[in-house]
């Protein structure tokens, strides 16, 4: 089985390196095909491993030593167990799809080869992240995906906004990574190992405050990757990258790494329910917070990004409440339909020549039937309507919140579900229905390549049927995760809640259709709605980016300038130069003492003598006085 593990892990790396070989040369279809093929290989291996794991085995290998010094021992160790195999499947499926899709999407791009190199490298990092058997290995993947995300967001590096977003994403992630590192340090110094099995076995023996700190720091780490408030701003800006990237990284895989971490570290969080509650609360807050921003946004990809954020909030609610398997399940389901949504958006963008404002589209269903269907179904899944994947996973989270008696969280999540439905279908309505507003801009949209649509099909299928895996999934992961069944025992309540939710959601969908399906004009910022405070607040993302700019970026820039110009040059360096100058100037001023005149030279000698004599007499007088007193 180890061979499959290595294939699953390293096939993407090989693909990446292969593509990198052609990095500087013009587009070669070969790179795309090879990279995709290798990913498919990885997918197959993962599937074989899944099968193996489902039979009740796990694979644990230690490839070689990475860092060993003192008591520290960190190997390259990989584990395929019930949790990681699920993640592997998600990652490989989505990335295979995205790879194939990208062959079409990036068709005309100069950086075609480079793109595949980055994309495969990302997959490799993600695989390292999920397969690692220790926290340090996880951190390798963690940083690796960050790096690839930076590369891919800034893929179109000539765009100022893209590179800016890339840097923002990287730096914000770094803030969280620091916390993660600290978490790792705490673990090491208290347990003496970073291996999951050792750590989770020993964690219960630690004093409570230390476990709490570990939980907090690891979660802060997760917050960065999963773009939780207040480190969320990068995610929306990251949409500057090519759309497949958004689909793969910023929807399906990387951003869920935080959730994966919490799920993986469940033995830790099980011991600290208070932190768990905080995580859940934050998740709920982010869910509604992000959904609210999605309501008014006029950027197709950003809307989807906010929805991702919102869904990540859901996952954290589940994870925080101890429903780890639910969180992971939603992660999986979400990965499928959200990637689908993004890829659909990519098609639209292509058709619209990179136009992102849905208000400038409309009526696209005629020209882009396939995309229309896919995106609509993905939105349905996202909205959580039966029997699509979203229903099973999202409803479970609501149930879990309900069962655990966190009614406020429940209420928030419920309301958010409505919002989700609303903004999803607002988007669908604006893009595909109503008047063909794009004509105003002289665009001639066309459907994407057929193979791209075919490539998306697996996702579509999964988005539809993923819910049906629930049982077998449950059996699988509860080998490792706490097997808590979240069932509302009172059947009446259960049905009321379920049906109520469904109705609420459908209502929201209808509302969205009613309002936007027949939209006819492109808003120009003059309407009353657009000028009301709430709208502005939401469309400006609660002014948070601005706040960060004013509160952190600008002062930092200013402070840096001061540190350089004022402190470093004018104080620190000037002191050193000042001392040197002082010495030199003393020389300049006093060397005139040597004026070459013999008279003054003689006078200096006499002065020297007189000074000596003065000292002599003074000493004598003092000496005599002392000896007199002594007598």
């Amino acid at each position, binding site marked *: 089985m180890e061979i499959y593990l290595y294939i699953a892990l390293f096939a993407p790396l090989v693909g990446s390196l292969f593509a990198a070989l052609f990095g500087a040369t013009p587009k070669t279809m070969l790179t795309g095909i090879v990279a995709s093929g290798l990913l498919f290989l990885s997918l197959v291996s993962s599937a074989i491993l899944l099968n193996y794991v489902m039979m009740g085995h796990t694979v644990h290998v230690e490839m070689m030593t990475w860092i060993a010094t003192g008591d520290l021992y960190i190997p390259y160790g990989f584990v395929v167990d019930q949790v990681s195999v699920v993640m592997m499947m998600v990652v490989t499926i989505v990335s295979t799809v995205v790879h194939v899709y990208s062959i079409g999407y990036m068709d005309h791009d100069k950086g075609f080869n480079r793109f595949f190199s980055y994309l495969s490298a990302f997959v490799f990092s993600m695989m390292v992240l999920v397969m690692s058997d220790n926290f340090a290995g996880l951190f390798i993947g963690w940083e690796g995906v960050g790096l690839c995300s930076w590369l891919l967001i800034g893929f179109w590096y000539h765009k100022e906004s893209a590179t800016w977003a890339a840097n923002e994403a990287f730096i914000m992630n770094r803030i969280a990574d620091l916390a993660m590192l600290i978490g790792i340090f705490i673990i090491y110094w208290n347990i003496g190992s970073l291996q999951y099995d050792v750590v989770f076995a020993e964690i219960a023996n630690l004093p409570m405050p230390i476990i709490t700190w570990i939980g907090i720091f690891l979660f802060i780490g997760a917050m960065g990757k999963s773009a939780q408030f207040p480190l969320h701003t990068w995610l929306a800006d990251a949409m500057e990258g090519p759309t497949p990237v958004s689909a793969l990284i910023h929807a399906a895989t990387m951003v869920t790494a935080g959730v994966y971490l919490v799920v993986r570290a469940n033995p830790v969080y099980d011991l600290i329910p208070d932190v768990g509650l905080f995580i859940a609360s934050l998740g709920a807050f982010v869910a509604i917070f992000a959904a609210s921003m999605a309501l008014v946004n006029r950027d197709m990809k950003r809307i989807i990004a906010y929805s991702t954020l919102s869904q990540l909030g859901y996952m954290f609610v589940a994870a925080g409440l101890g429903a780890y398997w639910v969180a992971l399940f939603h992660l999986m389901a979400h990965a499928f339909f959200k990637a689908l949504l993004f890829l659909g958006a990519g098609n639209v963008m292509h058709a619209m020549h990179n136009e992102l404002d849905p208000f400038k589209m409309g009526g696209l269903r005629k020209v882009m039937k396939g995309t229309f269907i896919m995106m609509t179904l993905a939105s349905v899944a996202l909205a959580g309507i039966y029997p699509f994947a979203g229903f099973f996973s999202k409803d479970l989270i609501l149930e879990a919140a309900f069962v655990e008696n966190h009614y406020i969280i429940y209420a928030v999540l419920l309301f958010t579900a409505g919002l989700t439905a609303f903004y999803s279908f607002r988007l669908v309505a604006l893009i595909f229905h109503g008047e063909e507003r794009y004509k105003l801009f002289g665009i001639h949209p066309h459907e994407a390549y057929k193979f791209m649509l075919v490539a998306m099909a697996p996702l579509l299928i999964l988005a539809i049927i993923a819910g049906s895996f629930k049982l077998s999934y449950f059996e699988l992961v509860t080998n490792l995760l706490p097997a808590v069944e979240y069932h509302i025992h009172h059947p009446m309540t259960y049905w009321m809640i379920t049906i109520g939710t469904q109705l609420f959601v459908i209502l929201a969908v209808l509302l969205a259709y009613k309002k936007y399906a027949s939209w006819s004009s492109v808003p120009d910022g003059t309407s009353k709605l657009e000028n009301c405070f709430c709208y502005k607040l939401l469309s400006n993302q609660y002014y948070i980016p601005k706040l960060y700019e004013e509160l952190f970026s600008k002062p930092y820039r200013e402070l840096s300038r001061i540190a350089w110009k004022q402190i470093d040059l004018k104080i620190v360096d000037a002191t050193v130069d000042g001392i040197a100058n002082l010495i030199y100037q003393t020389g300049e001023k006093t060397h005139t003492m*040597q*004026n*070459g*005149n*013999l008279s003054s030279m*003689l006078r200096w000698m006499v002065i020297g003598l007189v000074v000596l004599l003065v000292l002599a007499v003074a000493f004598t007088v003092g000496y005599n006085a002392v000896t007199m007193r002594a007598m």
Partner: protein
Amino acid sequence: MEITLAHYLVLSGVLFAIGLIGVMRRKNLLMLFFATEILLNATNIGFAAISHYYNDLTGQMFAFFIIAIAASEVAVGLGLLIVWYKRTGKIDLDIMTSMRG
């Protein structure tokens, strides 16, 4: 009133100080050399006096050698002055400032 060694030493000191003033004050090199002679002579008085009061000849020896030294110095000093005078036509030390700093 007896004249003690201290009297002589004080006299010696005072004469030495006069010599010092001369050394500092004179700008004419020849006259400056006069002042250096005063310094040595002042010392000689002291040596002779100590020698007398301690009943020891060493002081006189020292004075004797000082006189010899003074004489030699005059020879060399005048030689230097002569070349300097030949070159510049002056023996004023204020013009001797080509090197400074």
